[in-house]
């Protein structure tokens, strides 16, 4: 566990206009505004419970769900609690996840006034048929409208979420999506491969849909890597690309095994060496927002494993020296044969004292991580 200068704060808003067909995150559709306000109060009280600790916070991330569904008043209430409970640094990165059609100019200005300086927009695809299969509530043009509003509101750090491996998607159609987004030139782009999660509508009806082949999907993945790299984006994490210095500082904390506090239903924290979560149930949470779920102490072995599991998600990889200092053994010595093989195959590299995976390596990272964490 590492306590950096500032810790991260994640705030979960489990509300959506409608649930997307692939989504298995904790989120509820069609919830009444008064309940959302009640939830905002509960969030504020959970946040205030950390007041005594005097933590310095330098990233705040409103995730969901669709946090942009919050009213400006509720949002202000939460931010007030944040400022009262933590030392919020001046340069803090404050991200709000938003879906097109849930933001207007007034709301956006209010969010910005409360401190939001980074917006993450869910687009997924520029093609209407693909958006429809995913159950998205917006069209491409509605996205463009929201994107423009963000820029007009002065947001100079925007992320756009994209997906590949979608039913009906082709390499060609994905290329068009990539090109269109590159033309917009957001600071950050996330590109996720679709995962069919059990219990989602898409999972249930997968047999009736036609998905791109495995090879095709891999082509899309590499296509994103090549196109975005050429356009000046760094493939800094398995699914994330950014302009220099515009990496998601909040998410980097997860991958660098730094501390963070998660508040709200289903939110997870990593604090004082413990990982713990909150209930998935809204009613449960509204009744008691202090109860821990799955509290687990991460001991040295656990940390040694997480460091590899998470560190290798990043382009920067793991510092071998730092790893040895922390855990008392040299990775290159312990996994010499395997590392040589992975390097030869073009999946991993050791450069300038760091072990990292290549874009090709990212795509089979579970396998590689498994191989490199055998006895931990």
């Amino acid at each position: 566990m590492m306590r950096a200068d500032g810790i991260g704060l994640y705030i979960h808003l489990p509300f959506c206009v409608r649930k997307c067909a692939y989504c298995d995150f904790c989120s509820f559709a069609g919830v009444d505004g008064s309940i959302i306000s009640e939830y905002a109060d509960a969030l504020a009280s959970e946040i205030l419970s950390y007041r005594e600790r005097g933590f310095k916070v330098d990233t705040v991330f409103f995730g969901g769900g669709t946090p942009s569904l919050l009213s400006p008043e509720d949002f202000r209430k939460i931010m007030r609690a944040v400022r009262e409970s933590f030392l919020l640094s001046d340069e803090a990165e404050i991200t709000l996840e938003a879906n097109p059609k849930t933001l207007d100019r007034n709301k956006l200005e209010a969010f910005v006034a409360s401190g939001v300086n980074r917006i993450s927009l869910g687009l997924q695809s520029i093609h209407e048929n693909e958006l429809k299969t995913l159950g998205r509530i917006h069209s491409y043009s509605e996205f463009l409208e929201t994107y423009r509003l963000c820029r007009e509101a002065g947001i100079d750090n925007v992320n756009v979420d994209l997906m590949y491996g979608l039913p009906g998607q082709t390499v060609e159609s994905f290329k068009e999506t990539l090109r269109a987004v590159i033309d917009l030139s957001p600071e950050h782009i996330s590109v996720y491969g679709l995962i069919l999660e059990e219990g989602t509508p898409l999972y249930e009806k997968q047999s009736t849909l036609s998905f791109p082949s495995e090879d095709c999907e891999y082509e899309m993945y590499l296509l994103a890597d090549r196109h975005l790299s050429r356009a000046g984006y760094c493939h800094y994490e398995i699914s994330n690309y950014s302009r220099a210095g515009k990496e998601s500082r909040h998410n980097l904390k997860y991958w660098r095994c730094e501390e963070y506090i998660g508040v709200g239903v289903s939110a997870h924290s990593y604090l004082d060496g413990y990982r713990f979560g909150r209930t998935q149930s809204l009613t449960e949470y509204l009744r008691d927002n202090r109860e821990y779920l799955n509290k687990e102490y991460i001991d040295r072995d656990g940390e040694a494993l997480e460091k590899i599991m998470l560190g290798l998600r990043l382009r920067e990889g793991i510092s071998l020296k730092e790893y040895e200092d922390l855990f008392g053994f040299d990775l290159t010595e312990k996994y010499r044969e395997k590392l040589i093989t992975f390097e030869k195959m073009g999946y991993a590299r050791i450069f300038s004292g760091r072990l990292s995976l290549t874009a090709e390596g990212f795509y089979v990272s579970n396998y590689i991580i498994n191989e490199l964490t055998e006895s931990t």
Partner: protein
Amino acid sequence: MTDRQKYIRNFSIIAHIDHGKSTLADRILEKTETVAVRDMEEQILDNMDLERERGITIKARAIRLAYKAKDGEEYVYNLIDTPGHVDFGYEVSRSLKACEGALLVVDATQGVEAQTLANAYLAIDNDLEILPVINKIDLASADVEGARREIEDIIGIPAEDCPAVSAKCGLNIEDVLEKIVTDIPAPEGDPTAPLKALIFDSHYDPYLGVVVYVRVLDGEMRAGDKIRLMAQGTEFELFEVGTMEPFGLKRQDSLSAGEVGYFTASIKTVGDTRVGDTVTHADRPADEALPGFREVHPMVYSGIYPADGARYGDLRDALEKLQLNDASLVFEPETSVALGFGFRCGFLGLLHMEIIEERLEREFNLDLITTAPSVIYKVELRGGEVVMIDNPSKFPSPDEISVAYEPIMKANIITPTDYIGGIMDLCQERRGVFVDMKYIDTERAEIHYEMPLNEIIYDFFDALKSRTKGYASLDYELKGYKQSKLVKLDFMLNGEVVDALSFIVFEDRAYGRARKIAEKLKENIPRQLFEIPIQATIGSKIIARETVKAMRKDVLAKCYGGDITRKKKLLEKQKEGKKKMRKLGSVEVTPEAFMAVLRLDDEG
């Protein structure tokens, strides 16, 4: 003949599998009131779980019963149970040697079957009085007269007034008991002559050491006597002699000519006593041993490895324990590049092999990887030297071989006539050479083939069953060795030979099998980071090829706060799966891959 001898009857029960041998034995025990009905456990003679489940007797057992006959006299019955399967033919023959008569059980709904015949001939060869018993007359499809006719026509023994019973319902069992008195001769032998006793079985008891089952032919044995095992040439002092009662051993003062009983001495393992050996006195030995003793040699060999390499020691202990009671099981350590440390085990036959494997897994809780069974090949090398090969990985390369020989069996199949065509096709496919065929009656025929054992162990029995809906029965014995075109088929994964997958095959058959096994292997090798070529080779020639494509995707796209816990669980699950894998050089393989070579479909 002494008075004691006059009232003794030594007999066994022989039958084709499932014709009701054990049930009849139970009823006899019950009717002689040796075992009170309320204490009866089904099939008391078979006391291993496995035997009970499979309905077959694996090890011979003997029991002494008291029967009060209609003539008013009390008789001693020694019922000697015999294993019912062809793998244990020699044990059967020794058990029969201990008797004067045999009850031949014939299922009234099935008639005479392959093993009925084989066992009847064996009994006739041993000069036994055969007493046919027609069983299962309670069943609607019973044809008592038909069975009688078959016994007379096929086996050639009178059956006019043989008992017709239902062992299951306990019907007419008295007839059988009386027939034993009148038809089976009392044992002869001279109690004052030098001791001659036949060992027909033994078992290991943790308290008593090895308990040896004998039939005394001449002379008398008492505790304290110094005895000699004539074939082994070893000598022991008798601790104890006695008889086998239904619920355990009973110590007696002596065992004399005509009697069946046990003795104990300081014998450590059953391997120190050989079935068929003659026991005599050290100071007054018999002139010559009883004829017919031979060492039993395994016919089928297979490599047995613990799935978890760390359990090698447990496997060794388990095999040693089984060997205490089963001298026909042989094993020696062997190492495989692919599978690590294990044992090359020799068995009497396939059933014996299956039983041992199952007992290892069940009674000792071991996970095993078993290599394809192999027979023993005889190879004459170019230099003139002759070697016996029980392990395919030791088979010489084609250019070193002058002549290769393989064991050929006499196979005897009895089948309903409907299936004759199918069986002949099957035997032909399996390189069988037709000898002759006899019609038993209008519905059934007996077919004789000479066939390589190599083909029989390769799923032949299953194929026969499936082609005849289970109606055909099979019996086989070794005929001898025959010159053959044999090659070793090797499999390479990613360019490396996996020794545990090698096997010997008839040359003309090599291509077809190689292709099939390569396909099966492909199904059992999970995708890995690199493409894996599977190649089947004879010497340096590649005769079949498959490819396992490289793994494409193994990634968790999203991994944020809450996902870290989830991701760890996913990793743990993957690790669990990985643990079960076997690493063959650079390739990971599911343990099932080894089964691919063992089990192919019917057409082989």
